[in-house]
């Protein structure tokens, strides 16, 4: 989850997010190197007493500062496209969950075997128990098994919302009348937080997304329990 004064991404909980993290590191390093070089040149130009009023042209440096940026762009584009196609791979999900956005809560439906669904409301600040996160925790989390390909179909009941979980590298708009698909695999058990990412009215900031990933055996126990209780 997010931490105060956080600068970078949250720890990755899915393989795709790991790839995105590494790609970001790679690209940011290139950006830092270029910025440092430019800043150095600016400083050098500004702090010298030497002048040359007769520089007209120079074929060599023109070639260098044309080819080098092209090469750098290719070095950025190749990993970028690799990840793009990786995210677009055909997957064979083990489970389908539907996430429906409402004003102002999410509801989750697990209908592969039974018609099972529940609402997920944010825990109001005055009702927080010690250890719970303000504006992030919910009463019922979306539970999924670890290391299983999961398909999430996202839609909305009223206005636009957006279902986002940064540590899984997912953000998908919830559009009324449309079913948007995204898929992911959670690498490790844990609780992953996200927030609604499309302005949807007064309580847009107060409808978080919480995904709880547990081993498959426990997931089967959970779903049996939820079915019995509903």
């Amino acid at each position, binding site marked *: 989850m997010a931490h105060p004064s956080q600068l970078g991404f949250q720890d990755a909980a899915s393989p795709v997010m790991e790839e995105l993290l590494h790609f970001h590191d790679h690209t940011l390093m290139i950006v830092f190197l270029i910025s440092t070089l430019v800043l150095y040149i600016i400083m050098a130009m500004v702090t010298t007493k030497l002048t040359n009023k007769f520089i007209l042209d120079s074929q060599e440096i023109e070639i260098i500062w044309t080819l080098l940026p092209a090469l750098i762009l290719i070095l950025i584009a190749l990993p970028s496209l690799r990840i793009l196609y990786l995210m677009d791979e055909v997957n064979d999900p083990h489970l389908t969950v539907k996430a*429906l956005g409402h004003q102002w809560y999410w509801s989750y439906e697990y209908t*592969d075997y039974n018609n099972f669904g529940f609402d997920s409301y944010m825990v109001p600040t005055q009702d927080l128990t010690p250890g719970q996160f303000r504006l992030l925790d919910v009463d019922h989390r979306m539970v999924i098994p670890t290391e299983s390909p999961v*398909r999430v*179909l996202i839609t909305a009941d009223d206005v636009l919302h957006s279902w986002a979980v940064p540590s899984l590298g997912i953000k998908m708009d919830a559009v009324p009348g*449309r079913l948007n698909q995204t898929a992911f695999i959670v690498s490790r058990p844990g609780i992953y937080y996200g927030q609604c990412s499309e302005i949807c009215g007064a309580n847009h900031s107060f409808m978080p997304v919480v995904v709880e990933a547990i081993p498959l055996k426990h997931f089967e126990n959970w779903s049996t329990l939820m079915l019995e209780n509903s």
Partner: protein
Amino acid sequence: MSDRINEKIQNYRTAPFDARFPNTNQTRNCYQNYLDFHRCNKALSAKQQDPAPCEWYRRVYTSLCPMGWVQRWDEQLEEGSFAGRI
């Protein structure tokens, strides 16, 4: 042939990848399977055949479609106001 279909239905886990709907927008996938289920039922019942193979479409649309959508369409079907051609 019906053995293969029955086996597929028995081993059903969730809606598999459908190459007709490869992209992010799965609205049509849900709707098409709903239509196909009812068309299959209608066609097989008209020929006095066992509608068991139609179960596949029902499983797929149940997996994909939000319960609210299915409920609304079922009500429309009962009323006779469903817009799709079945």
